[in-house]
């Protein structure tokens, strides 16, 4: 990746997420510079995972917005009331034209044709609204209607993630899991697949080779055909990373990737973060409890506590910040 190092890949502005009365994330501003490793830390329940889920498109924020790769992707919907108008507008226009032509020519055929076209358009718009392909979202955006991105839109835009408690597809093999990760980068249609067109076969072959490469990259060579559930715990964590990498993200969100690992596994994982940055050129946002890991790999650290951002800076700055010490060790510890 050769993007401008100064341009942040992700900008969160005043992100707030409320669950009922509980403010899990409170007006958090956050920048992730391209090519950096940024960590998000904080005591249990601080709102780290919630922030991740907002950024990944899983939760619509209560307030604030997230810009990803220079585009506004996530925020509360705007002018949602206008969307149904967009659905019926083409239909109405076609019907009006039909009636007009009918009046001019008095033949009656135009109206019937217009009716059929109008019905087709209505069904098309209805399907577009449900499937929400990128063109549809862009069309709405042009018209000033904004809908927050879904998780799959964020993946297409270049965001990959892992989960705090592993969420692999357990009955699939390691290699199949990685291939699911590639889903948005593969393009074979059902027809391509059903007819085994060369395009589909080439793509599948390539996907298989790539899946092996990703598995080898995270250190799972030779375990391609193992069922995910049968893998050792540490291997499952690594497989999640491989699956996320397979979607060719620009930004990788890792939610406590070393949780439950022993020191040697943790060290391997830490090495992997470095390689992801240097060899793949990715940007990483890391949630991590292990302070040694955090201090070792992070360029910048942001600290959350009870949903508030209480500190931000280099590892050295954060380590010395009295508010951080207080949040972790309780009041009085910083005195």
């Amino acid at each position, binding site marked *: 990746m050769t993007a401008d190092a100064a341009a942040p890949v992700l900008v969160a502005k005043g992100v707030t997420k409320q669950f009922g009365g509980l403010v899990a994330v409170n007006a958090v501003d956050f920048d992730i510079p391209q090519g950096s490793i940024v960590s998000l830390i904080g005591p249990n329940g601080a709102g780290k995972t919630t922030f991740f889920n907002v950024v990944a498109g899983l939760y619509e924020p209560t307030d604030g917005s997230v810009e990803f790769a220079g585009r506004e992707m996530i925020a509360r919907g705007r002018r949602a009331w206008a969307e149904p108008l967009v659905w019926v507008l083409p239909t109405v226009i076609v019907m009006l034209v039909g009636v007009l032509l009918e009046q001019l020519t008095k033949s009656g055929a135009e109206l019937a044709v217009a009716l059929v076209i109008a019905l087709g358009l209505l*069904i098309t718009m209805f399907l577009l609204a449900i499937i*929400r392909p990128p063109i549809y979202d862009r069309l709405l955006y042009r018209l000033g209607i904004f809908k927050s991105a879904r998780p799959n839109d964020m993946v297409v835009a270049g965001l990959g993630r892992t989960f*705090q408690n592993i969420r692999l597809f357990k009955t699939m093999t390691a290699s199949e899991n990685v291939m*699911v990760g590639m*889903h948005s980068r593969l393009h074979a249609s059902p027809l391509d*697949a059903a007819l085994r067109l060369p395009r589909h076969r080439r793509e599948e072959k390539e996907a298989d080779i790539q899946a092996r490469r990703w598995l080898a990259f995270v250190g799972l060579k030779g375990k391609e055909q193992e069922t995910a559930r049968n893998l050792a715990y540490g291997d499952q964590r690594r497989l999640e990373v491989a*699956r996320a990498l397979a979607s060719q993200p620009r930004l990788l969100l890792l939610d406590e990737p070393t949780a439950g690992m022993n020191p040697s596994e943790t060290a391997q994982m830490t090495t992997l973060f470095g390689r992801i940055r240097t060899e793949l050129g990715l940007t990483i946002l890391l949630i991590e409890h292990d302070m040694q890991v955090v201090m070792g790999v992070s360029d910048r650290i942001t600290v959350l506590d009870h949903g508030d951002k209480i500190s931000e800076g280099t590892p050295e700055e954060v380590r010395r910040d009295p508010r951080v010490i207080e949040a972790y060790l309780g009041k009085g510890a910083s005195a």
Partner: protein
Amino acid sequence: MSGRSGTGTPPVAAGGTGRSGRASSPVWRVALGRVRAYMGRHQSLSIVIGLALFATALPFIVLLPPLNGFGTQKDFIGGFADAGVFVLLAIGLNVVVGFAGLLDLGYAAFFAIGAYTYAYGASPFSGLDIPFWPMLLVGAIVAAMFGVLLGAPTLRLRGDYLAIVTLGFGEIVPVVFLNADTYTNGTNGITGLAQPSAYGLFGVNGFGFTNPWPYFLTVVLIIAVAFIFLYRLQDSRIGRAWVAIREDELAAASMGINTVTTKLLAFSIGASTSGLAGVFYASKLSIVSPDQFGFTVSFTALAMVVLGGMGNIWGVAAGAFIVYEIQAQGLKQLGAFVQSLHIPTFALGPMSVDLGSINFINFQYLLYGLALVLMMLLRPEGLFPSRRRRSELHESPEEAAESNEELVQA
């Protein structure tokens, strides 16, 4: 059983047999292993060979005792053709329920839509006379379109809610056909549908009521095509996406899968298979009426999928065939058999019981119910489970608990 595994990696097996030949020594096992490996690599060919063998063997098997005592070969062949309809229904429903994990209780709606499509395309009622073969395609496409239209509003729902809504759709469709008299002839249905023509191929001209053979061969052909397409879809990015959604929808979406589109695809592909079955069924009976497509059809297809082994195409097909034959032949013969024993009427408390007079066909759904209950207790993965289902249903208790955890921990 199922030859699934990552594409391009050596698939383990495909085809009809269920054991795994992994042992080392005997020659026949090694040979079997070779055959399996070959079949894994040539999936479509092995489907064709497997079905061809089956279709060739069946007509001979029914000539053997005791089967030959139950009816003529012709009767059996006609019955097999009807069984084929349910095989198609079951493998189509398997895409929705088995692959994508969407419980659809109104699947018969698409069967009805396929059948009525043929009725409009080739009957005196509409005045059209479009040949059977293109109508197969038309029926599949129309059913697929309705699959999308009926599926679209329901797909935000999950589990139980989806089941209820599809149940509603399944009831609405026959009711519409029943009440829109002017367009559907209401209760009487549409009659006199044209029968297919084979254009003199193999010396067969018309498909007649008296000759079930062409129907039998046709349904085997349709099943073979459906099998090949479904196997290929299962082994593609779409098949993987279905499984991913079934296992963990949230993780699937977070891996870039558009869950709505993918579920709609499952719905429409399942519906199109059902539409094929509908066209074939209508042409064979030469009549369509709303009462042929009630809830019992949806239920029967679902029972076949569950008993056969959700997610495994061959297993589901075998399940459908077995269930259909038990229902159509087995129960009838059971009645005849019990009758032939001449068990005298005996008293059971205040009742007098005459076993010989029992019509077992009346107990069909009771027996289904029993079979399903037993199956769920003893072998929840079905008779011929897919590798996936088996491993899923035998997960450890901790894992089961874990997978019940809430989104809170996403």
